[in-house]
């Protein structure tokens, strides 16, 4: 193990880690927004759109993310939609994650019993107040474990963006090994980088889960 090499690699891995963080952040963000929209559409059974949303969820959940990325990156330009690798990666994560988040959020919404809505109404709360103070907190509590699982899942899914020339941790590791054959050092840095990213996220999300559970009686 060449320890000096590790020192040289550290800034490169830091850059790649930052790329993964950005992808993860925007991917999760996009997924939550898209997922929430789709969940509401399905929960309220909006005609027509509900069907489309259902179809979207099926396609996104039953095809591998790798194909989705390839399709976005190499397929779409042929009909005039060309976006950078980074943009495609985020679009892909949003497309995939949105479906999973939608299901998680919807299960949360449907877990809130009918009686809650009526009780809130009888207390004179408006629609928005009901949603904000009564429904959403409960829905979130039920949905949170699934949501946190999806967050970890999405961050791990970023590991294939190397196929569309985005320099994430896997891509960097493969580049270094491919050019200089320093497997030991590169893999060690890879493992460390993923841990630096995933451990705090995992611990943080679990703490969030615990707080939410305690907040609800």
């Amino acid at each position, binding site marked *: 193990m060449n320890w000096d090499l590790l020192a040289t690699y550290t800034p490169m891995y830091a850059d790649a880690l930052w790329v993964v963080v950005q992808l993860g952040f925007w991917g999760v963000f996009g997924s939550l927004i898209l997922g929430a929209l789709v969940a509401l559409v399905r929960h309220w059974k909006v005609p027509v759109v509900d069907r489309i949303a259902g179809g979207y969820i099926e396609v996104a959940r039953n095809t591998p993310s790798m194909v989705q990325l390839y399709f976005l990156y190499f397929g779409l330009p042929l009909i005039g939609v060309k976006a950078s690798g980074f943009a495609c990666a985020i679009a892909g994560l949003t497309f995939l994650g949105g479906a999973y988040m939608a299901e998680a959020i919807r299960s949360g919404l449907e877990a809130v019993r009918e009686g809650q809505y009526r009780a809130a109404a009888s207390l004179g709360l408006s629609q928005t107040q009901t949603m904000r103070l009564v429904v959403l907190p409960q829905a979130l509590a039920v949905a949170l474990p699934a949501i946190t699982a999806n967050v970890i899942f999405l961050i791990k899914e970023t590991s294939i963006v190397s196929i569309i020339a985005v*320099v994430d941790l896997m891509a960097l590791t493969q580049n270094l090994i491919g050019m200089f054959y320093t497997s030991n050092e590169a893999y060690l840095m890879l493992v460390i980088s993923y841990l630096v990213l995933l451990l705090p996220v995992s611990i943080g999300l*679990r703490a969030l889960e615990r707080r939410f559970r305690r907040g609800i009686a």
Partner: protein
Amino acid sequence: MSKVKAHPNIQLLIPVVALLSLLLSSCSLGETPAETSQSAASGSEIASSAAGSLDEIREKGTLTIGVFRDLAPFGSVGSDGEYQGYDVYFGDQLGEDLGVKVDYVGLDAQGRVPALTGDKVDLVLANFAITEERAQQVDFSLPYMKASQALISPEDALITDVSQLEGKTLIVTRGTSQQTWFTKNYPQIEQAVYQTQSDAYAALKDGRGDALAQSNLDELAWARQNPGFRVGIEGIGEPTLVAAAVKKGNTTLLDWVNEEITTNLPDNFFHDAYAATLEDVYGEDANPDEIVVERGTID
């Protein structure tokens, strides 16, 4: 759901510690070549610890050769499911001369060295250029082809000098000597690195880069089929020699391959290989004498 645990994070540390110690312990293992005792032939401890020595291949009855599956006309899979190409032509002959079946394994550029160090193939015939770094990982035979680095770009935005790439994007394939060369010599030029050659060319077609760096031979072949693109610069850096590669220390196989090249192959074998696989592709654009290397000697 789960009961609240006193130290939930200790469970996270266990796998962390386990993996780190595994990696760190492999450092010491990495100093000596892997003893593939599981796969070594019965008893007969040959000097080379590499599995896939000549005797073993004869015993197995199969020669496993790593080639490209997506780099026509050197190594590709036709619609009949059979491998074909300049490298494959050579591989077929080797199998015939050794009296064994040939098993082709499709590799990507980056997988060529690991395929040998990891004992996945006996031999690599995949447009494999001899470089210093690679020579430390594998053993190369005598060369059978000459190539040089070239840059291909769209005709209406032709790159004719490397300096024109400043501020632009260069497409390369992961694991090729072009990737290494440009990283070492022009680190300031931004690279878009793709996993396979086919992805790299697809990216060039989509305009995701301003030029693609590859061996001149691949590019010439591709350019002829894809109007609108031309090889703007040839001969960047030193010319490269393409050779067969075996696992380090596999002297029996290496010596045999070299013997084939210098003595046993019919005269002008590689010219024949060229005629069978490359001539149609290049037509008048290339001169076989400048590409092919006979008997492993460069004049």
